[in-house]
């Protein structure tokens, strides 16, 4: 694989090369007081000079004292916004003379370049790949969006206040799943990017960018940045034997404790980059000639998420919180061969009451075996 050092003044060529290759570039940008993922066209669209201050139930943007392009962690969006859109039309039904004709809906044909994908997000995409592509049926919308994505990953230069990718073994260094990875190096003397390719496509694109050859000192610089980020994690989680721990503590009093705080607002499932639950929606035209069926995001925190003949199975917040956490951290291993959590910290940051999944696990671990 190849590498190159590209100066800040030349980073615009990355945008040009991607656009020229036909990609719609999705990347971080500031909007409504947060860093979200949206279409970006030039370096100026990025959150230049911004960082984020995150904690349980708290997210603020703050100005850095430099003009780094990637000096922040992650916001409420994840790449599932593009790969697994919040609402997708699945098919139309045309009714005439009583007979029904089922017509699959158009899948948008857009080729995305994802610019600024963090290591935890690469892990999350790999996890959703297993869910939507690797467990029997193939999800058409996901497959179509995913197959053409050009991924420009970023090695994090700062750790977020709620990050714990080190505990989950998912970061902060990007190791695979990208076409290119960049590490931003910024200090008083220089502002440049160490770019490394991960695929042939990445190599070809890299070849088109102006820059100098990377030297060992540049790679050492990257190591240093990654190591520093790894040492600044806002949270940590002991993942040892976590599947058995949660399976054996389904009646632990801590579930009742967290249920007193949890609002079942579903924020955590909305922002989690691996949550994949959905529901269907039906609509009919005014003349009853056409019906459509759509898929939209759903959350296990809703009352009617799980039921038998219309009677909810998990009728209390406690039961639904337990479902979410044991699914994410334990059942996922049995279902998909890994944890469902990548340690991005979003659920902690975006929980209105600051429930911290790492603290909940620690509390159960400390008093495991206790029953209500």
């Amino acid at each position: 694989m190849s590498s190159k050092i590209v100066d800040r003044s030349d980073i615009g060529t990355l945008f040009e090369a991607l656009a020229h290759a036909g990609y719609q570039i999705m990347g971080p940008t500031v909007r409504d007081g947060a860093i979200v993922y949206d279409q970006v066209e030039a370096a100026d669209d990025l959150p230049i000079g911004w960082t984020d201050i995150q904690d349980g139930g708290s997210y603020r943007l703050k100005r850095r004292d430099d003009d780094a392009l990637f000096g922040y962690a992650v916001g409420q969006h994840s790449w599932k916004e593009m790969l697994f859109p919040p609402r997708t039309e699945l098919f139309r039904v045309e009714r005439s003379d009583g007979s029904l004709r089922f017509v699959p809906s158009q899948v948008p044909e857009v080729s995305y370049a994802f610019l600024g994908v963090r290591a935890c997000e690469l892990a999350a995409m790999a996890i959703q790949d297993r869910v939507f592509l690797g467990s029997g049926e193939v999800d058409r919308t996901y497959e179509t969006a995913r197959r053409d994505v050009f991924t420009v990953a970023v090695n994090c230069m700062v750790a977020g206040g709620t990050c714990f990718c080190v505990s989950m073994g998912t970061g902060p260094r990007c190791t695979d799943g990208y076409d290119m990875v960049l590490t931003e190096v910024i200090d008083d003397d220089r502002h440049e990017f160490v770019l490394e390719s991960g695929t042939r496509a990445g190599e070809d694109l890299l070849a088109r960018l102006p820059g100098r050859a990377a030297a060992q000192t540049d790679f050492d610089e990257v190591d240093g940045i990654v190591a520093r980020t790894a040492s600044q994690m806002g949270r940590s989680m002991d993942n040892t034997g976590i599947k058995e721990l949660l399976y054996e503590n389904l009646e632990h009093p801590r579930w009742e404790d967290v249920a007193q705080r949890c609002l079942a607002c579903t924020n955590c499932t909305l922002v989690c980059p691996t949550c994949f639950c959905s529901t269907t929606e039906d609509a009919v035209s005014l003349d009853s000639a056409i019906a459509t069926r759509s898929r939209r995001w759903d959350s296990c925190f809703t009352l009617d998420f799980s039921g038998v003949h219309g009677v909810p199975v998990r009728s209390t917040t406690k039961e639904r919180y337990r479902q979410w956490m044991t699914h994410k951290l334990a059942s996922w291993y049995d279902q998909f061969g890994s944890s469902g959590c990548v340690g991005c910290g979003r659920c902690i940051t975006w929980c209105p009451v600051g429930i911290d999944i790492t603290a909940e696990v620690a509390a159960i671990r400390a008093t495991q075996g206790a029953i209500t």
Partner: protein
Amino acid sequence: MSLQSLRESSELLARLTNTELELFESLSWEIEAKADEILFDEGEPADTFYVVIEGRVALEITSPGKSPMIIQTLGPGDLVGLSWLLPPHRWNWRARVTDDSRLIAFDAVEVRRQCNENRDLALEVYQVVADEVASRLHSTRIRLLDLYSRP
């Protein structure tokens, strides 16, 4: 009826010792009952109890203006009647034979008298009947849950 046949007629009687079974045998007689025959009625003194050999007996209760409700049916091997052992020794239900049946009848009055005099016998009989009461209570509770009703 031979002791062996008596022993084989019901899981409950099978638990009695030979001596106890001999006593029961001496207090028993076989009857044949035609469909719709009433074995005993609500409120009557519980002086005879039965074990079904063949056929079926329905326990039912009447209600003014309504058809009688069957609360339980009993078939081969089942004990018909529990109130014969427990005071006030009066039947709570009516027992109506629904199919042509063969039953063994037992003199409950004499069994009660013998139990009063013989503690060991009483213990055996009460254990057997208590188990049956528990089993019927369990089954009745399951039906009380009305599992098959509209959710």
